[in-house]
């Protein structure tokens, strides 16, 4: 895979008995993160005033997108934290882990989405299940979903998705 001037050989990981999927890691790779962010920033839908993402792999990427675009971001967690106040909670069926996950949006962070045009940002969007859960959280927080943005699209999704490159679903 090549993004800008940076090339990476992606490791693959076995999924069930059906084959292997390529794995994109932003954690621990500032060079690749920066190259992807530099190209992705132009894909942020016009009118976006807040980015919404989810832990963990996308964190360095969404930070760079925010720093480059000047658009602030909010992060949804996958665990309840002790300090959360009146969090918004949604369940999402996960394709990667094969088990349902629960997303937690801390109340004060939800307040930052209210009345805002929110773009959902992820590293990889496959079925779009997590992206749809983030969209539900946005609406429950009183924001409007302005678009969906991913570095990589992997497989088919019905979502209107802005993305940089496509990854093979199976190898």
């Amino acid at each position: 895979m090549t993004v800008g001037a940076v090339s990476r050989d992606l490791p693959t990981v076995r999924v069930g008995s059906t084959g292997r999927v390529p794995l994109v890691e932003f954690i621990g790779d500032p060079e690749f993160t920066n190259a992807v962010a530099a190209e992705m920033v132009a894909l942020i839908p016009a009118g976006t005033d807040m980015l919404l993402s989810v832990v963990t792999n996308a964190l360095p990427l969404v930070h760079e997108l925010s720093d480059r675009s000047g658009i602030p971001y909010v992060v949804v967690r996958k665990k309840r934290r002790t300090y959360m106040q009146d969090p918004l909670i949604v369940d999402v069926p996960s394709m990667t882990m094969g088990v349902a996950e629960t997303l937690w949006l801390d109340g004060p962070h939800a307040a930052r989405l209210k009345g805002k045009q929110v773009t959902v940002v992820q590293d990889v969007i496959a079925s779009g299940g997590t992206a749809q859960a983030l969209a539900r959280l946005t609406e429950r927080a009183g924001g409007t979903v302005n678009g969906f943005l991913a570095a990589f699209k992997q497989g088919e999704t019905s979502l209107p998705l802005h993305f940089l490159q496509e990854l093979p679903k199976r190898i």
Partner: protein
Amino acid sequence: MKTHHVQVGTVSRELPIVEVAPGVSVALFNMLGDTEVTEAAGKALAQLIPADVDILVTPEVKALSLAHVISRESGKPYIVIRKTQKPYMVDPVVREVVSITTGKPQTLVLDGFDVDKIRGHKVAIVDDVVSSGGTLHSISQIIQEVGGEVAAVIAVFTEGQERPEVTALGHLPLFT
């Protein structure tokens, strides 16, 4: 809501004071979603890393973007110690460490792929806030187990007691 004023480089914030246990409140510092503070702290801390440090190690999740910025600014690579094992990890090093703060077991997972980056190298641990030192103790343990040397501990804030072994930009009091 009561708040506590902090300054990170040119950026100032009013941190909410939140009760975390009966009679104990802390100034809640959460860098996730705060691009300005993460950039300011990361750039300042990058200047404070000893030159002989080879690699940065950070626990997930809250300090991850901070480690990214320090790495970007200093040119030193970073790796993340996870709290759950992932299916894609290769020969992960999994350690149950009893937290010296809560007495509860805590799982730390180092991807086997990352072990060689630590073994025989000088490591700087990066975290957002060092409070009781529980996480710090656990991470130091796993680094030493795989043959690394903890050469520095870098944090935005220390909290509660003063910690001379930690290089920090500021200090947060406990509110009792």
